[in-house]
C-alpha cells in the first residue's frame, strides 16, 4: 500500500508526462491535419508544378505557388538583413557600454515595443514607409513603384522583430560571465576586442537561436505584412515590386470563394507549405548549432 505522498508523487509524474506528450502531439496533429486537407490538390497536380509555377487562376484550376513562396522568402530575408545587424549593435551597446540605468530604461521600452499589436505596425507602415518608398526611394532605382512592395514588407517586419531579437540577445550577452571579460581586458585587450573575440564568440549559439526565432516569427507574420506588401500575384522582379507572402494569401482568401473547386485544398496546401518551411528551417538550424558547437569549441 502506497503512502499518500508517494502516490501523489507518482500521479504527478504521470500527469506531467501526459501533458508533455500532448504538447508534442499537437505539432503532428497540425501537420497531419493540413497534409490531409491538401491531399486533393496534391493528387491532381504534381508537387513540382505546384511549387515551380506561378500561375494563380483558381477558376481555371491553375494553382502555382512559386510567387508566394518567393515573396515569403524575400520579405523574411530583407527583414532579417535589416534587423539582425541593428539588434546586434544595439544589444552590445546596451550590455557592454551603457550604464545600468539606460539598460533598465531600455529593457522596458523593448518589452513595450514587442507588446504592440501587429496591426499598428501595419498602419504605421502604410502611412510612412509605403509613401517614403514610392516617392523618395524607388524613383532612384525604378520607373514606378506604388510603395506597396517587398521592401516595405521587409522594413515593417524588421521593425517588428527587432525588439524580439534584442530582448533575447540582451539575455544572451548578460549570460557571458564577467570574469571572462576581465580575463580578456586584463591581457590588454580593448573593449571592442573583448566584445568581438570573447563576448560575441561565446554567444554565437545564442545569436543563432535568436535569429532562428526571429525568422520563424517573420515567416508567419501576417497582418502587418499583408497591409504593406501590395498582395499581387507575380514574381517580384525587384524589391520595389509588390509581392504576396503565403500568410497573406491564406488570410485574404480563406473563407471566400470556397465554391471554386480545389480552392480550399490549395489554401490548405499553402498553410502546409508554411508549416513545412518553418519546421524544416528549425531542424536545419539545430544541425547548424551542433556544428557551431563542434567548430568553435565553446
Amino acid at each position, binding site marked *: 500500500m502506497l503512502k499518500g505522498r508517494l502516490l501523489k508523487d507518482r500521479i504527478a509524474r504521470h500527469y506531467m508526462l501526459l501533458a508533455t506528450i500532448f504538447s508534442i502531439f499537437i505539432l503532428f496533429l497540425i501537420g497531419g491535419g493540413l497534409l490531409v486537407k491538401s491531399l486533393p490538390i496534391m493528387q491532381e497536380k504534381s508537387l513540382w508544378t505546384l511549387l515551380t509555377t506561378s500561375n494563380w487562376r483558381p477558376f481555371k484550376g491553375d494553382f502555382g505557388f512559386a510567387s508566394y513562396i518567393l515573396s515569403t522568402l524575400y520579405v523574411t530575408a530583407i527583414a532579417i538583413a535589416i534587423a539582425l545587424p541593428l539588434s546586434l549593435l544595439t544589444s552590445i551597446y546596451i550590455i557592454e557600454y551603457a*550604464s*545600468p540605468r539606460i539598460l533598465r530604461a531600455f529593457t522596458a521600452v523593448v518589452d513595450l515595443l514587442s507588446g504592440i499589436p501587429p496591426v499598428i505596425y501595419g498602419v504605421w507602415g502604410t502611412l510612412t514607409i509605403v509613401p517614403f518608398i514610392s516617392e523618395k526611394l524607388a524613383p532612384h532605382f525604378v520607373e514606378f513603384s506604388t510603395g506597396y512592395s517587398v521592401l516595405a514588407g521587409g522594413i515593417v517586419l524588421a521593425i517588428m522583430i527587432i525588439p524580439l531579437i534584442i530582448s533575447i540577445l540582451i539575455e544572451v550577452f548578460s549570460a557571458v*560571465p564577467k*570574469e*571572462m*571579460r*576581465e*580575463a*580578456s*581586458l*586584463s*591581457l*590588454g*585587450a*580593448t573593449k571592442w*576586442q573583448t566584445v568581438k*573575440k*570573447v563576448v560575441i*564568440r*561565446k554567444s554565437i549559439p545564442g545569436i543563432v537561436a535568436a535569429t532562428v526565432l526571429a525568422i520563424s516569427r517573420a515567416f508567419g507574420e501576417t497582418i502587418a505584412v499583408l497591409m504593406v506588401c501590395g498582395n499581387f500575384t507575380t514574381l517580384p522582379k525587384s524589391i520595389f515590386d509588390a509581392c504576396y507572402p503565403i500568410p497573406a494569401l491564406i488570410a485574404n482568401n480563406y473563407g471566400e470563394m470556397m465554391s471554386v473547386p480545389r480552392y480550399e485544398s490549395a489554401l490548405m496546401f499553402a498553410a502546409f507549405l508554411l508549416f513545412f518551411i518553418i519546421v524544416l528551417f528549425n531542424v536545419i538550424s539545430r544541425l547548424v548549432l551542433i556544428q557551431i558547437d563542434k567548430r*568553435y*569549441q*565553446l
Partner: protein
Amino acid sequence: MELMTAPSIAEQPTPKAKSSSGCLRPHIEVENLNLYIQNNHILKNINLAIPDKSITCIIGPSGCGKTTLLRTFNRLHDGSVDVKITGKLFVDCEDIYAKDTEVTHIRKKMGLLAQRPCSLPMSIIDNVVYGPRIHGVRGKRKLYAIARHQLNAVGLWGEVKDRLKSPASKLSIGQQQRLCLARGLAVEPEIILGDEATSALDPISSKTIEELFLSIKDKYTIVLVTHTLRQAKRIADYVAFMYMGELIEFGTADQVFNHPKHKLTKEYISGGFS
C-alpha cells in the same frame, strides 16, 4: 587606538630602483589611495610600495579590501560605474589613474590570475596566444612557438601538446589555472597579480601553482591576495596585512610573521580572528 599607522614609505624595505627607465620609484607604488563604492569607503588611504622581482602577499580577513586593492592595480574597476577612486598609483613611475593614461598598455604589463580559472571560449592554443594576437603578433609559426614556450613554462606542454586544438574548457580546473598563467605570461608582463589564485584548486594543483610562482619570481613582480596564511608563509617575500580597508602593516615576510609591530597583525597571524 591608532589604526592609521601604515608605515611610511621610508620605513619600508627599500625596493630596488628600476634603472632601465630611470625610474626611481618601486615597481608598484600606491599613494594615498582611497576607493569608494556607492559612498562606502572601501579602501582607506592606502600607501604601499611593492618591490620588484619578488612575491608580495596581501593578507587579511574576508572583506578587508585586499581583492579590491589588487584590482585597482590594473584598473579593473573601470567597468563599474559606482566606483570612485582618489589618490595615485604608480606603475613604472606612470600614474595609472592620471586623466590621460591609456589603460590597455598598463594591463598588458600585468597578468591576472582569477580566483577561479577563466579560460576563454576557444581552443587551448588560442587561449595562450590570445594576448599576443590582440597585440598584433601574426604568423602561425611564431604563435605556435609562443604557445609552446609558455605552456612549457607552466609545465603544461607535456599534458596538452597532443590536443592543442581542443577546447580549453575540457581541461581540469588545475590545468586551466596553469593555462591562464601561461596566457598571462604570453603578453610578456612585468607583474603577475593573483587573486586567491589557488583557492578553487585541489592541494596538488595549488602546490604546482605555488612552485611556479617561486620559479618565476626572479623575472616577475608577483602580488598575491591570499587568505591562507600558510600559503603566505610558504612563498611570500613581503607581506601586507590589511584590516577593514586599511593597510595595517607591511614588511618582509620574516618581520611580519615573526616580529609583527602591530597588535592586530599579531592577533591575525596567531589565528585570533579570521
